[in-house]
C-alpha cells in the first residue's frame, strides 16, 4: 500500500496519513460492566483479516474509515464517518 484514497482529497501518498487503529463501537460508559469496559479499552482484534479502521489525512485534518485487510494490506474502500457507520 503506497497510496491511500482520502474521501475528501482523493488518492494521496501513504506518508500523508496517520493510522488511528481499529474501528470499535463504544459501549455506554454508564451501563457497561467493568469487564465490558476494560475489554473495550484494552482488547483488540489482532488476527489478520478484513476490518474497519480509523485513518487520518494529516494535510487536511480529515478523519475517515478505511476497510483494509490486515493480512494482505488490500484496501477495499474508504469513506467518511457517519451515523450509519456506527450502527451498521
Amino acid at each position, binding site marked *: 500500500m503506497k497510496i491511500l484514497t482520502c474521501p475528501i482529497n482523493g488518492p494521496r501518498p501513504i*506518508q500523508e496519513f*496517520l*493510522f488511528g*487503529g*481499529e474501528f470499535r463501537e463504544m459501549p455506554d460508559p454508564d451501563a457497561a460492566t*467493568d*469487564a465490558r469496559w*476494560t*475489554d473495550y479499552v*484494552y*482488547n*483488540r*482484534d*489482532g*488476527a*489478520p483479516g478484513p476490518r474497519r*479502521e480509523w485513518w487520518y489525512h494529516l494535510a487536511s485534518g480529515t478523519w475517515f474509515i478505511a476497510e483494509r485487510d*490486515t*493480512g*494482505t*494490506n488490500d484496501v477495499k474502500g474508504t469513506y467518511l464517518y457517519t451515523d450509519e457507520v456506527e450502527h451498521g
Partner: protein
Amino acid sequence: MPYRLLKYGLSSKHPDERMFTTPSELKKSYDAVIIGAGGHGLAAAYYLARDFGITDVAVLEKGYIGAGGTGRNTAIIRSNYLTPEGVKFYDESIRLFKDLSGEFDLNLFYSERGHFTLAHSDSAIRTMRWRAEVNKHLGVDSEYVEPEDVKVACPPIDLTCGGDAPIMGALYHPPGAIARHDAVAWGYGAGADERGVEIHQGTEVTGIDVKKGRVVGVRTSGGYVRTPKVLSAVAGWTPSIADMVGLRTPLTVRPLQACVTEPLKPFLDKIMVSGSLHVYVSQSSRGELVMGGSTDPYELNSMRSTLEFAEGLSGHMLDLFPSLSNVKILRVWAGLCDMTPDFAPIMGRTPVGGFYIDAGWGTWGFKATPVSGKTMAQTLATDREPELIHAFRLSRFEELELTGEKGAASVGH
C-alpha cells in the same frame, strides 16, 4: 571451548550427526503441546524436560525452527529496564544467557559490548536518570553518562547528529550484549530433542478444542492430538491462536524492519541506540552493521520490507555516523511484533484451563528467551506462575494494574 568440535576434528566418523532427530508422525496424545518452535517455545520445552522431567511434549511449528522473531531480531541483550519487575526479569535472563554456550556445548557468540542509549532531549535525560537509579537499586550495572563519555567510547560518532538533535547525555549499560540468535533456538531445541521432546516442523495448528472450560486437544495439519496443556509461544501469530480458544487479548501486530550492511573492518564495539532517531546499531562478528528501527506506522501481519524504512533508517544512521555514507545495505527483512499497551509481555495462565500464553513480545522478546522458557516451563508444570512473572499476567488489564515499560523501549514505537 566446545569440546564437541575438537572431538569431531579427531573423529573418523563423518559427516557429523544431525542436530535434531526427525520425529515420525504425531502421536495420538501428549502431556503437553507447545505451539511455536522459536526460541521461547523451545526454551520452555527444554526446561520442562530438564527441570521437571516432562518429556512427553510435542512442539508444533508451521514453518521451521526459528522462522519467526527468533531469527529476525537484532540480537541485543540488556536488562536496563524501567520497572523493577522488568529489571529483575531481564537480569535473570542475562544470568541464564551467560551459561548457555557451555550448557549446550554450542558457541552462541555471546559478546558483551556495552550498550549506550542516547538522549537528545531534557525529557529523555530524565528517563535515563530514572532508569539508571532503578537499575542501580536492583544491582544492575547502569549509569548516566555525559556526551564526552560517549565520544571516548565511540569515536566515529557525531555528537551534534548533523546539528538537528545533539546528543545531550546517555544511559550506559556495560553488560549489554549481542548473541547469535538462531543458535539460541537451536541449542534449546537440540537439548529438548535429546531429552525426548518431539519437534514437528511444517505442522500447522488449525484449531484447539476446549471442553467445559479446559483444553482437550489440538487440531493440526498432521492430525488430531489429545492434550491437557497447550502453551502458545507464537508472538505475532498469538491473536489467531487465542481466537481458537475464544480468548480476547490486547495485542496488535505490526512489522518491525531491520537490515545489515556489507561487512566492514571492526570499528564499533559498542551497541548504540537512539530513541529520538529511531535507530539501534551494533557490529556483528562478521563485520556487518546490524541495524533496526521502530515498528511500521500501521498494523499489518506481513513480513514485507519497504523503501521508506531503508530511506528513513539510513538518514538517521548518517546523522550518528556520517562516515558511513558510502556503505551499502545488503539485506532488509521484517519480523512481526505483538505489541501490548504497556510494553510489557503477557505470560502465564489464562481463563481457559490448560491454555497458557507466552506473548506480547513486541520488540523485546529475544533477550527474554532463557527466562521466559524457564518461567513458562514452571507455570506449565505446576499450573502456577512464579513470582518473577506475576506482573506480566494477562489479567493485569482487567485489574487495571499495568506494568508501564514504554520508557525502556529502545526507540519510540
